[in-house]
């Protein structure tokens, strides 16, 4: 399996997906060698520790027999490739590494590629060399940064190649345009793949429409729910004595629709002034949002948290009365599952992939601020509705286990192995 992130370090949901999917596949008896680009050494200290101290599933071992031993091997290739890498962000990271005086912090070998494109192809070469030592049956590559590596590996070994599309370049820009270089890498991966897994029908439509991918080789495998720590609870009494809490949690970027959230808040507060809105997460629109709430005269009803870690996420979800995900474009969007497991009813945009599989939620058009506001008010006004969505939503998310997508992946493995790489 080729990926670019693995918990505990991640920038988006894909790392959690890789880990949860891997665990479920391990449980089904699949051995996995997880190869990923590794950044500065210290970042992975924690991961190494976790993997080496875990008792069974995460032993660092070389897997060699198909479907027999339950083993997961994580292979690292030293690289500064990053989850949501863009040309600009890569350049920045490259400069940082080059200029760093602390040579121990960034192990100098091997040399990093001079730009993003060079780096992913360098990564591809490294993967090829490394994987030659491995025995495996299927290449399963997650998102575009690993596609060249998958192609190289397929060429070298003739093994069937599956790509797993969690997000496309178009999604990151709200569906309008794509970086031509990244687009090219994505498209080459799709063309070379024996099977393409997409995390929603929405992504499937996108890659058929924008990348001309062959629909007959695309299989939709919806993500499942992230396991949560149900012990962690946070009551937020200081706020809750007077107010109900509405939560947005995610990157504060165009893609996630934070501005619609703020506009809906304005409307909600006109009817229900005892409501506190949390806008949690970092992002390039954060300052704009702060300014906007001030301009609308609702700044005092807003809390901005900036970046939050997993434990803080657990607390945020448990203290909220309503969770809102007004994403403009969301290939899947696993966060509503997390809120529902923490017993918070959700409002999600119809433009999200998860809306294809989530029923016990309120679905809105992200641009329809009135609709978002009226659904928030309904959840705040009608206790039976709140209870019912809390209750049914909880079981819905709990039942969305990774066993289901893992079984689908396993079927795909069997199919491509039976056919042989093409």
């Amino acid at each position, binding site marked *: 399996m080729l990926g670019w992130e693995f918990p505990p370090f991640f920038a988006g949901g894909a790392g959690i997906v890789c880990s949860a999917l891997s665990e479920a596949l391990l449980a089904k008896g699949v051995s996995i060698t997880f190869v990923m680009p590794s950044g500065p050494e210290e970042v992975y200290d924690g991961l190494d520790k976790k993997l080496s101290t875990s008792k069974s599933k995460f032993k660092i071992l070389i897997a060699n027999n198909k479907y027999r031993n339950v083993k997961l091997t994580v292979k690292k290739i030293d690289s500064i490739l990053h989850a949501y890498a863009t040309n600009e962000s890569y350049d920045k990271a490259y400069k940082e590494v080059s200029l760093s005086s602390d040579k121990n912090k960034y192990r100098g070998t091997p040399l990093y590629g001079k730009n993003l494109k060079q780096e992913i192809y360098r990564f591809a070469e490294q993967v090829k060399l490394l994987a030659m030592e491995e025995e495996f049956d299927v290449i399963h590559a997650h998102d575009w940064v690993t596609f060249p590596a998958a192609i190289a590996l397929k060429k070298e070994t003739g093994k069937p190649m599956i790509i797993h599309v969690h997000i496309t370049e178009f999604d990151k820009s709200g569906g309008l345009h794509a970086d031509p270089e990244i687009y090219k890498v994505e498209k080459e991966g799709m063309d070379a793949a024996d099977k393409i897994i997409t995390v929603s029908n929405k992504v499937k439509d996108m890659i058929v429409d924008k990348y001309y991918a062959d629909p007959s080789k695309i299989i939709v495998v919806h993500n499942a729910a992230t396991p949560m720590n149900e012990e962690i609870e946070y009551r937020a009494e200081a706020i809750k004595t007077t107010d109900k809490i509405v939560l947005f949690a995610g990157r504060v970027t165009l893609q996630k629709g934070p501005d619609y959230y703020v506009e809906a808040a304005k*409307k909600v507060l006109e*009817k229900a002034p005892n409501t506190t809105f949390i806008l949690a997460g970092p992002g390039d629109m954060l300052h704009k949002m702060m300014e906007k709430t001030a301009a609308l005269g609702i700044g005092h009803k807003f809390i901005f948290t900036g970046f939050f870690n997993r434990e803080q996420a657990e607390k945020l979800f448990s203290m909220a009365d309503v969770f809102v995900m007004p994403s403009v474009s969301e290939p899947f969007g696993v966060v509503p599952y997390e809120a529902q497991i923490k017993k918070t009813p959700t409002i999600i945009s119809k433009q999200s992939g998860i809306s294809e599989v989530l*029923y*016990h*939620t*309120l*679905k809105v058009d992200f641009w329809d601020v*009135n*609709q978002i*506001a*009226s*659904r928030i*008010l*309904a959840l705040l*006004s*009608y*206790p*039976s*509705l709140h*209870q*019912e*969505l809390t209750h*049914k939503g909880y079981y819905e998310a709990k039942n969305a286990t990774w066993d289901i997508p893992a079984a689908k992946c396993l079927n795909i493995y069997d199919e491509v192995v039976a056919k042989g790489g093409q």
Partner: protein
Amino acid sequence: MVSVCFYFHVHQPHRLGHYSIFDIGNHTDYFDEHKNRQIIDKVKEKCYLKTNNILYRLIKQHDGKFKVSFSITGSIIEQFERFAPEVIDSFKRLADTGCVEFLSETYNHSLAFLFSKDEFKEQVLMHRRKMQELFNQTPTVFRNTELIFNNELARYIQDMGFEAILAEGADYILNGRSPNHVYNAVNAEKIKVLLKNYKLSDDVAFRFSDKNWQEHPLSVEKYVQWINQINGGGELVNLFMDYETFGEHQWEDTGIFNFLELLPGELLKHPDNNFVTVSEAARKYPIRDTVDMHNFVSWADLERDISAWLGNPLQQAAARALYDMEKYVKATNNYQLIATWRKLTTSDHLYYMCTKWFSDGDVHKYFNPYDSPYDAYIMYMNVLNDFARRVKAELKELGLLQIVSGEGAALPEKIHENPSLIFSG
């Protein structure tokens, strides 16, 4: 001898529009007249006019030997009167043949029997007056909304003077007995209970066009043969179904109209067979046994119970909120307010809030004008909140508010899950 009793159910609700929380206090256009009209226009063309014509021809063709019964709700009659008066006339023409009988039911297709016996009785009487006015008939056989039935209802209907009542011939009620006899109910010895033969009814209503059904395609000959086989094992076959089976649920290209046109002739080939209306069925055959239905049974879903309307807490909360308002609404003595409230008693509003279909298939979804049952609940509660404010304002103007609610009250700004709290809050 086998008598075949056809009974068709005719109903469309006044659907609500997308009434948002922000609409409360601003406007009172609760009902989506555009959509309601569109639906009436559609079903009138696909089903009502066409099927009524076929039935009329069949009655004439068989010299009055072909007979059917209808229940038509006040909800759909009001909409026919506004949008499609020619449909009313075509039903009148059927009534004039003397071969068509109209049943009694609640005017608004409501669950009033479960919540308010007073309201139930009023709606039954309203419907009776409408049947007298339109068709010059006084119904003597009752069918409750969605064939919801239990012993208590049977007794109540018996005491209201009806001679028969319809019910679902559910397996767990019959316990191996045949639906093809007349029964009575525990504590309701006199009333005749006519039970739906759900197998033969659903063969037409649900399975007729199902290509996966091993009997597909269903020929008239085969169907009549099944009915003939009952001879000896029963005397009455009750084929109860939604009238929109013809042309709407089963489209014309399935051959459903052809099936209907050939059926009477084929059935009457056997000299022992005949058609009866519901009251004829009740008079013709004696009570053979007793059914005991303590809990409510209905003709909906696999469960054949009332869970399609009251199965989740939202449906229960909405129904409670509605009926808790009854005394305030009626105290206004305002015809329009009472009529609006009654439109809200139509069971379809609760049906749209059913969440069973998430796992149980898509019958509910097909009939649901909302994206989700939760949206249906929100719209309904928003409407009730606005409506309660209007009723309160009216009572205040009449100087009745304190008398009705028992305490003085200021107009609250708050939106309530049970809007009757508005009267005391």
